[in-house]
């Protein structure tokens, strides 16, 4: 079985390399044609994607559009608009030490790249890296997640139909196909997913010295201070947590930290806003995504059912195993060594941890692994400064959640356990480019001190020349 998987993967990879080597993907025209083709897919087949996302995740059409499809079209449009500028060599001022000379950075593709995607935003997290790879002129294989099979099938069909199949391929499948793909030599690998598989990807890349981008996750904390506009904060918190795929999002708030006296106010506010958003029967609310599959459903209920959480569930807790739905659930003061506080939740459960002094919240966060995002709601300037300076995370948002990743001017990526590398906007183009430095020299200004036979005088000259010390250079030239 494994042999037959390799058999289909190897020729696909080799075919792409031949096409890439022919130079086909390098032209502006090819890149534009592919970006336009992708744009057509996202606009003409929006309905197909919505249906697939509903099938895989129970994702509401609005979420499907806002979080996935519109982001794909935006990425295409931005690339089309900026491509000329991104492709142009960047002039670089060269230093005195190489005078006279001129320099530039010439962006070039890596070559044949592999994009491995995930299941929670299966369209976005597959197509946005592919758009990036194409705009940088790479040939690309996309391996969508088998855990979201309808989305995977839709993408395989549509990309097969619209894109240049000789240079852009979708290979569907599970662990076996992924393993076979990782055994091939790629010029870059872009992986979105969890840190366990991230390690496997990085180790496989090491064999071929392939550079990688790992977009992982983590426990994204939210500090909620007391002197704030609580209603607005809670609305933003809810939309970032449950409004984003029922919390199954790498940048979703994972847990909240607030002060002991403020906790009940916070819980009440969350409770009433939740009801305004999702009604009195949230387990059956159609605006909420379901849990992706029974394996994750079991994982989440195990977190909830741990003895340590007994009596601590203050909102929700209802579940519907048949329909794989869990109501928005809030847990107050789960012990720090409970499963829910040690693992990435990736679901609609929100622990609130209370501290005596809000500043202790920063210590708690920095004692854990670096997350993909960290959030704080506060009007306290000093606390905000402290938080921004001391908390290391992929990205930080103040008085907001998740929305920072919609800004194309900001790089999106992790640090430490939450990953390495960035993309979005121009960072996407750079993620898939090697910016090759080029130095132009002429034949004037020969410095004989570079060459043997070496003498003390040459040493003196070199010392002055390398430090840019004009007086020293003159003195050395005059033999002083």
């Amino acid at each position: 079985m494994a042999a037959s998987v390799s058999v289909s993967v190897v020729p696909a990879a080799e075919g792409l390399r031949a096409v890439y080597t022919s130079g086909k993907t390098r032209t502006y025209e090819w890149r534009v044609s592919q970006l336009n083709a992708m744009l057509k897919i996202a606009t003409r087949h929006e309905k197909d994607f919505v249906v697939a996302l509903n099938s895989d995740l129970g994702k509401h059409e609005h979420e499907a559009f806002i979080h996935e499809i519109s982001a794909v079209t935006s990425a295409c449009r931005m690339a089309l608009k900026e491509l000329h500028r991104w492709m142009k060599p960047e002039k670089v001022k060269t230093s005195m030490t190489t005078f006279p000379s001129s320099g530039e950075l010439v962006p070039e593709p890596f070559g044949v790249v592999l994009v491995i995607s995930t299941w929670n935003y299966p369209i976005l997290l597959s197509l946005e890296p592919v758009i990036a790879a194409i705009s940088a002129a790479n040939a690309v294989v996309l391996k969508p997640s088998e855990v979201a099979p309808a989305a995977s099938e839709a993408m395989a069909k549509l990309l097969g139909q619209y894109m240049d199949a000789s240079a852009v391929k979708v290979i569907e499948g599970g662990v076996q196909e992924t393993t076979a793909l990782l055994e091939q030599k790629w010029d870059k690998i872009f992986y979105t997913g969890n840190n366990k598989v991230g390690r496997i990807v990085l180790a496989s890349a090491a064999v071929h010295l392939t550079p990688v981008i790992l977009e992982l996750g983590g426990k994204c904390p939210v500090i909620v201070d007391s002197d704030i506009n609580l209603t607005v904060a809670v609305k933003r918190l809810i939309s970032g947590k449950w409004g984003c795929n029922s919390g199954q999002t790498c940048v979703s708030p994972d847990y909240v930290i607030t002060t002991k006296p403020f906790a009940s106010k916070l819980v009440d506010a969350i409770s009433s806003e939740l009801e305004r958003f999702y009604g009195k029967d949230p387990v059956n609310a159609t605006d909420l995504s379901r849990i992706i599959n029974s394996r994750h459903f079991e994982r989440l209920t195990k977190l909830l059912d741990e003895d340590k959480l007994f009596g601590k569930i203050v909102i929700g807790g209802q579940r519907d195993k048949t329909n794989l739905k869990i109501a928005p659930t809030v847990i107050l003061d789960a012990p720090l060594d409970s499963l829910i506080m040690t693992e990435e939740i990736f679901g609609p459960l929100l622990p609130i941890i209370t501290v005596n002094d809000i500043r202790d919240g920063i210590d708690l966060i920095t004692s854990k692994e670096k997350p993909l995002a960290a959030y704080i709601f506060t009007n306290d300037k000093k606390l905000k400064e402290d938080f921004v300076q001391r908390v290391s995370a992929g990205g930080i948002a103040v008085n907001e959640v998740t929305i920072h990743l919609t800004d194309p001017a900001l790089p999106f990526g992790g640090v430490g356990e939450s990953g390495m590398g960035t993309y979005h906007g121009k960072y996407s183009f750079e993620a898939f480019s090697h910016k090759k430095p080029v130095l132009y020299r002429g034949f004037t200004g020969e410095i004989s001190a570079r060459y043997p036979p070496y003498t003390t005088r040459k040493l003196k000259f070199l010392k002055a020349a390398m430090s840019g010390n004009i007086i020293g250079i003159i003195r050395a030239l005059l033999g002083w």
Partner: protein
Amino acid sequence: MEDFHGLIGLRRAFRAGKTRGIEWRMCQLRALLKLVSENEARFFEALEQDLGKHPVEAYRDEIGVLKKSADHALLNIKKWMAPKKGHLPLLLFPSRAEVLPEPLGTVLIFGSWNFPISLTLDPLVGAISAGNTVVVKPSELAPACSSLICQTIPLYLDREAIRVVEGGSDVADKLLQQQWDKIFFTGSPRVGRIIMTAAAKHLTPVTLELGGKCPVILDSFSESDLKVVVKRIVGGKWGPCAGQACIGIDYLLVQKKLASHLIESLKACIKKFYGDDVKSLQSICRIVNKNHFDRVCSLLEEPSVGASVIYGGSLDRENLMIEPTVLLDPPVDAPIMTDEIFGPLLPIITLDKIEDSIDFINARPKPLAIYAFTHNNKLKDQILQETSSGSVTFNDTMIQFICDSLPFGGVGQSGFGRYHGKYSFDTFSHEKAVLHRSFYLELEPRYPPWNDFKLEFIRLAYNFEYVGLLLLLLGLRRRYTSSRSH
């Protein structure tokens, strides 16, 4: 848990914020400069001992590089540390975005033996400027330099934040088992793989500065220009550590009809620079040790390769000296043309036309540098567009290494990641995206319960169609009706 070489202390110092302030970083950079200038004679001595490196070469390629790098960092560190403002779309008004560089934490730097000072301490400049705590592991193959670095660093730099660990592969293995926030490695692809595999266990990002077969493409030149070209080629091949350099020239490509004149010019220049008796060569390093000496010699063993030697070839095993050697058209499948030479042997490959060099280079792994001597702009463009390498330098060799504004690093088998100048700072930093919003100007359409109005609003907003948005809000725009009943 064993505290391997005080790693726990380094992590603690980092968490305590010791290395974050600009004062600490600048103080360490100044201390490093002091270390170098006060111990210059000792460094020259150590380099002479380890590699037979002449002080001029030692200054040009090691001490001078390090000084320049630390000076450049001191001059620019404030700018580098400043947050970069990002612009935000009107939709997110009022808000503020910035990218804030922060240190990665505790980092590990592996030095190399061929430029044991600069390749070990130049990355340290980057790590310090970026505010990290550091462990430096110099190469044991350059023991005098390793020892000197180990002795001097604790005397000048902050011991709580910067440490030197000496030793061989067993020490390196143990270091690799620890958890680091970044690993910076200079060396061979073989060891690069080992490093990256170990780093994968902890999801540690790495920079690998490897090597490759760096070719020179030589077009035709006037006699006067050729004089300069030949000096640059000879200086670029045997000047840096007798060819034991990652960006050193590995082999040369030239048109058949130009070969013999080139060879005569090369011979004359080599004699002038280095002399012609292997027992009394001047201004050139020796081979680092017997292992590498034997390795380089074995490249000449094959009879067809030996027969292609047209200059040099003399060996002095006792003193680890190999005469600058030139070969003409050795077989392209012999190890001398498939492995990185890393020694004082220069194969010349002749071609019918110089444009054929592009295919020749592309048939081989991507090198760290490509050197092309040509006035032909069309050829220059072809080289840039049709080949891939860490860098390209036109009409010179090696010198891109001391240009602080150009990134230095490889691609493909020559590595990934880059440094020098600001890129050193960046390579040891995490650029953290920060978005600041206030509580005003709430966008209701963000929130459920969903309806068609909200969807249309967001659709327009995402396309930045502000006029359409206005019309929608004024009720003057036809709404898109969704297929779902609500």
